[in-house]
């Protein structure tokens, strides 16, 4: 197993700085997620680790010792399958070091492990569906028995059910080998389900790294808060005016500040109560979601969204209480983003 260490890693394309003094470490055997928007530098960092590009300055160490060079493998964002080879030939080509008979057996074992149906083993990439092509790319990456596996948005362009299924396949394949794995994604849900640690990149800088709970409840910036799950934006003035009920000290309610008068809280911090005094919000709509209902309410043109245990009828009045961040309670709801669009 190999570790990855970056120190002041910088990559520039001409005048454009894509990575700016990134300091980052991944321990051997760890699975780490790299989260960030388009152009944040995720893929560039991955390419540097893979050796597909050279950094402009800084230090990058992959592997523990030069005596035993680490094998790095990658699942590309566009998969980079070879259009002229069949699925089985892809793996046989990579397994060239094995004797011919073992090569075929090993290729078939890997394809089975990636749950690629046997009837498509003779198909070329153009004849494979999106999910099958992803599985083939994963099997090819695993065929080299890598010490470090880099996954560059491997679930992009797949529908949600297929994404969950493939994520399960990746988790099994990676888990059984105990390799170091870096998982690049746009999706907080995928990162949470797959990674023990998550790093957030923003405009070429590593803005925060930690456990999913850390990032969820203690984001260092509004950008990290937005990347690490759903947030609700409130105004400090609503608290002072009594438009929101407050359970606890108002100074410790927000997970982070978004502006002079703006607070960011997680949906779990908001509770629906009976409308009293100024704390009166009118329900706009209520939609089903895992573990309850996602209700949106309005007051004087301002909107809040919160989780409610029951379906609230549009026009109904309710009060909203804000509680402190639940630091000890890692109550991140799985599949929260998969919202049904059915009317209640």
């Amino acid at each position, binding site marked *: 197993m190999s570790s990855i260490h970056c120190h002041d890693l910088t990559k520039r394309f001409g005048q454009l700085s894509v990575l700016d003094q990134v300091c980052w470490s991944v321990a051997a055997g760890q699975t780490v997620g790299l989260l960030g928007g388009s152009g944040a530098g995720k893929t560039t960092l991955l390419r540097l680790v893979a050796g597909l590009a050279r950094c402009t300055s800084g230090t990058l160490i992959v592997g523990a010792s030069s005596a035993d060079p680490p094998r790095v493998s*990658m699942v590309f964002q566009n998969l980079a399958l070879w259009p002229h080879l069949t699925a089985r030939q892809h793996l046989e080509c990579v397994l060239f070091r094995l004797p011919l008979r073992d090569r075929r057996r090993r290729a078939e074992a890997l394809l089975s492990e990636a749950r690629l149906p046997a009837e498509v083993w003779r198909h070329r990439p153009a004849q494979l569906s999106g999910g099958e092509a992803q599985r083939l790319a994963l099997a090819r990456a695993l065929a080299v028995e890598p010490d470090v596996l880099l996954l560059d948005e491997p679930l992009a362009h797949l529908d949600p059910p297929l994404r969950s299924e493939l994520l399960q396949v990746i988790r099994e394949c990676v888990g059984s080998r105990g390799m170091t794995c870096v998982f690049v994604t746009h999706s907080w849900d995928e990162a949470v389900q797959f990674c023990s640690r998550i790093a957030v990149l923003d405009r070429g800088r590593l803005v925060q790294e930690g456990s999913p709970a850390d990032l969820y409840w203690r984001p260092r910036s509004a950008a990290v808060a937005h990347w690490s799950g759903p947030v609700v934006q409130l105004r400090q003035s609503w608290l002072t005016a009594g438009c929101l009920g407050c359970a606890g000290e108002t100074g410790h309610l927000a997970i982070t500040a978004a502006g002079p008068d703006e607070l960011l809280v997680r949906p779990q911090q908001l509770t629906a109560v009976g409308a009293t005094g100024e704390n009166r919000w009118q329900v706009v709509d209520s939609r089903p979601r895992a573990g309850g209902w996602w209700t949106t309410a309005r007051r004087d043109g301002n909107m809040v969204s919160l989780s409610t245990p029951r379906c609230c009828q549009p026009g109904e009045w309710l009060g909203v209480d804000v509680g402190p961040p639940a630091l000890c309670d890692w109550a991140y709801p799985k599949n929260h983003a998969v919202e049904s669009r059915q009317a209640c």
Partner: protein
Amino acid sequence: MTYRAARDVRCYVPGWPCWPAYGVAAILLLPLVSLFGGEETVSEPPVSAALPSTAFTVTGDRAFPWPAFVATVAVAAGAASLAVLVGGLVAVALELTDLPARSFWGTAMLVAFACPSAVWAMGQVYCYGPSGLADRWLGDAWRAWLANRDKGHYLSAVLVLGEIHAPLAMLLVGRGLVRLPQAGWEAARLSLPWILRWRWLLGAVRTELAAAWLLAFALSAGNFAVPHVLQCRLFPIELYLRLTNYLDRLGASLLALALLTVTLLAAAAVALFEGRVPTAGGEAVADQRESHRTALGRYRWVVVAALGLYLAITVVLPVGAMAVEVGSVSNFLSAVREAAPETANTLGTALAAASLALIAGAIVGRAAARKRILPLEHAALVPIAVPALVLGLAYSQFYNRAGMLGLRWLGDGNALIILGLTARAWPFAARAMMSGEQQIAPACHEAAWLAGLGRARRARWITAPLLANPALAGGLVAYLLTVGEVEISQLLCAPGRGTLALRLFTFLHFGPVHVAASLALLQLALAVLPVLAYFLFTNRCLAVV
């Protein structure tokens, strides 16, 4: 940057270094510098019998032939416009509509591109010239009317050069049309009325249209065979006469420089436009095209009839006229038998030159596509516009110079003509390889490197299979250009080693018509059969431009 531990010794380096590409381009283009040289100082005769000895050089005070120069520019512009009009319309029909038997029409259109210019022009003369097939069928009453309007045969030259370069325009515009799905063709079809849709279409492929016009202009301006056969006194004819009739090599060099300036300017403009065209980058755009075709409906047979009529007038009837001129099968076989040594020599030199051109094209084209260095990309495009006559003149002057690297022995055998033909064909092969390389996503190479495949294994298992088709297309185009080459053969052919084109050239002037027609048919067969075989085995279009 510091890479420590094992990653230090393992970092991917895409492609090959650039210096071999620059080296190849420089070696093949270096003889052009001889056009800038002063008066020859060689006292002994040159090795090639076709070259006039400088001992007899006449350096008169002949003025620059401005009328021929202006006429050439006008004829080339007219031919390029005609080529873009015809080629563009055919490309639209082939790429954007549900025209039946599209691959047949595409292949048939390419015959003009595959056929040697001299043979093509001969076919037109045998069909539509005085006492030709048209005269025999329709009588010659209309000829006087036409002769009055086509004094100097400039109109004929425009038509024939336009026909020859229409397939080139078709390929170039077709390449632009392939990109339309990404450019929003479906949205334009749904939302715009037909007139605005055409305007949108012209805007979407304007870079390809401009590139096609400029390339056709450059190639037409430098064409020697067509004005020679049509007896149209254009600038290449003036250059040739200055060289062979007046034995004025210095004057010929000056004219060559003028011609070279015009064609290279056009090619440089093409390179400018080419730089704005996005490449496919490995995306499978071809598969998306079927769903974007416009149904022709009841106009389908109108388009088929128009295409059929065009091909009948430009291909079927002229080839038929050549066959009529041959007279009988025994005439043809006799001419072919007598031309056996030249045929063998032509095939040998063409295959050798095409192979060398493909190697040179692969080195330059791949480096240009992978490195994306502008000068290298231009180096692979601009030499396309160097006229064969100018190239032949430059090579003859360069390698016949006394003390010139001691390479005069090259002219004693086929080496010099092979080198000259290679210099003529390599830019086309380079374009084919560039086009092929641009279709491969760089990640394919990177994935192979990450999978632990060494350079040799990557070349054998990944690169070679993916580049096989472009290489085949590039080799075929190089062969087509070399098998029917007249100008370079005339200037660089060693004594006793004639080529088929040279024999045809001789019989065109001094021999019986049936022999010339037989040789033209033989040349046509040698050129067209490989094209048909290519389509039969690969079932795809020539991706050369």
